[in-house]
């Protein structure tokens, strides 16, 4: 199907997601949006604001308060011709749905030798940086990325929020769509479009640089860009790759970027042990070994439960921590 960028608008990430849902609902009568408080309230982050009023209760609706039910219900809807887009209210509140996600959503295509497709999207506001209390700031991407059968994406700006959500809804496979909470209010230019285009799976070089490559996704992209800006003032040129999609993983773009600089730091907010950041570091280490002048470094959250609001600044990758890691990359002039 063709993609035509029809217009541009300045939107916040939350508004861009809202617009993506609205456009998908308008274009495809099988798209259904549901979850907890997504109806008249418009979601606790207002991502579904106005959708029930515009499209009616059959298209955007509140469910009973039960995440396993929501996810299992989505499976059935998708089995019978619908394109469900469900919302989990917060990262940690998706855990009751885990059984449905891992044992059914991820496996249905494989179990049925390709007969049963589940073109569904699970939207999950994720990560911290908003002063949230426990269970409201988890970075749960590793659980999903580790589960074969799921696509996992995480936008870092309003434009990608819009296009990735359109892609996710168009995808023939289930997509876990991670929305960085602290970026909901950030504004940016968004290219709107019509039509379906399954386009998940491409990373992008967000900022050009020659000395080292920072690899980030979702909530950690803005801090990586900020670190690159600070480094530039000190005469060091850092490149920033925004993954956008964790699964599928864009090895070509990532390796191309790393090979062009010969050094790499992975930046991610989740605890580092057995994480997506570890997977990225391992892949880069294996594939770009001969271009690397130093081992790949990771700047991640510590291996602890997400801290309470008063201490969360210690957990989040900071500009200083990123630059410390960059400094460690065995520079000849050091």
């Amino acid at each position: 199907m063709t993609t035509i960028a029809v217009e541009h608008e300045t939107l916040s990430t939350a508004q861009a997601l809202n617009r993506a849902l609205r456009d998908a609902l308008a274009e495809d009568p099988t798209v259904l949006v549901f979850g907890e408080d997504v109806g008249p309230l418009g979601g606790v982050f207002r991502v579904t604001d106005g959708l029930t009023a515009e499209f009616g209760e059959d298209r955007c609706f509140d469910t009973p308060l039960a995440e396993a039910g929501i996810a299992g219900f989505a499976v059935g809807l998708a089995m019978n011709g619908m394109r469900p887009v469900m919302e989990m209210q917060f990262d940690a509140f998706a855990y009751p749905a885990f059984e449905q996600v891992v044992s059914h959503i991820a496996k249905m295509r494989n179990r049925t030798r390709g007969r049963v497709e589940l073109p569904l999207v699970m939207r999950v506001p994720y990560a911290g940086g908003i002063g949230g209390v426990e269970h409201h700031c988890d970075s749960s991407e590793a659980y999903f990325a580790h589960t074969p059968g799921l696509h996992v994406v995480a936008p870092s700006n309003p434009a990608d929020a819009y296009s990735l959500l359109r892609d996710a809804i168009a995808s023939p496979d289930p997509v876990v769509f991670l929305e960085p909470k602290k970026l909901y209010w950030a504004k940016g230019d968004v290219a709107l479009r019509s039509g379906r285009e399954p386009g998940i799976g491409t990373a992008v070089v967000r900022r050009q640089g020659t000395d080292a490559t920072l690899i980030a996704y979702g909530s950690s992209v803005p801090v990586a860009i900020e670190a690159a800006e600070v480094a530039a003032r000190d005469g060091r040129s850092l490149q920033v790759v925004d993954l956008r999609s964790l699964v599928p993983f864009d090895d070509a773009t990532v390796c191309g970027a790393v090979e062009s600089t010969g050094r790499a730091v992975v930046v991610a907010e989740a605890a580092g042990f057995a994480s997506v950041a570890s997977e990225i570091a391992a892949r880069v280490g294996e594939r770009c070994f001969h271009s690397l002048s130093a081992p790949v470094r990771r700047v991640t959250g510590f291996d602890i439960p997400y801290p309470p609001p008063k201490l969360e600044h210690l957990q989040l990758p900071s500009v200083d921590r990123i630059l410390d890691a960059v400094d460690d990359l065995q520079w000849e002039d050091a």
Partner: protein
Amino acid sequence: MLLDPDGRPTAAGKGSLPDAEALLRGLAGMIAARRFNEQAGVLVRQGRLAVYPSSYGQEACQVAAAQVLADGDWLFPTYRDTAAAVARGVDPVEVLGLLKGDWHSGYDPYERNVAPLTTPLATQLPHAVGVAHAARLRGTRTVVLAMCGDGATSEGDFHEALNFAAVFRAPVVFFVQNNQYAISVPLARQSAAPSLAHKGVGYGIPGEHVDGNDLAALLDVLSRAVDRARTGAGPQLVEGRTYRIQAHTNADDATRYRSDDEVTEWAAKDPIARLETYLRAEGILDDTRAAAFAGAAEEVAHRTRDGINRDVEPNPDDLFRFVYAEPTPQLVEQLAMVRDELSREEGHR
């Protein structure tokens, strides 16, 4: 209902009201709970608390839940049940630790047998059943009272907990505060059951619903359930019908999903006014006593305010201290890194 919204004993109430001492204690508790809710509301507006889910209007449920328990019994509260934890004797400042953002749970659960405030809905209910079963195995006559909201009764854990409790005849009382909403979702969209109390039937658990703004009725129903559990007759489900007068939390805008008229209607059924009217009419409560209750409530508010306004810098070491009995080698390394960063920052200043 034992007392109607105007504070008059109903037909059922005549002759079966709890004794005057219990009612006075309940009134004092509710006045303190209301004042605590108001104080926490002010503190969240001042930015001293990260968030506050208020039980304003639900004080009868909050106080009754604590009052029907004996000393060694257990209470399992949710995020909204801070006033119940305070009524049970937990330090109000410690109770608010979670919501202030200092730590995830601000008090020692073993001190007053109050489990940590639980946010993932209904997940504390199976724990309550486990605690109750262990109490039986250990030969203590402990009862566990586990709280949740109307919305939480839709979660799988609610149902699994009820079933476990029934199968093991565990001494648990499940107390659902039906405050008519789960954030924006009204009860009618949450459940098609004739009542939430009916949810016990399929598990073989007696269910009872009660006016959740009538402290007398709550004390009556809940103490009978607790006594019954203590004798080994098994669990019970109690639905208290009340109303969340304020928004879900300070971050919520309730005007998006409910009318002012509805709130006004429920405000007229206030649990405190009702009991106070009755106790005054009966000559049980006089101005001196009422002033003493208000004074004690003020004391709680004062202590809360003072404690929350006193900033104790949380210790970064704590992030690494309690993850395991012994920190892993990796955590030891990571703590050293944080300390190094902090001392370098110190050096820059």
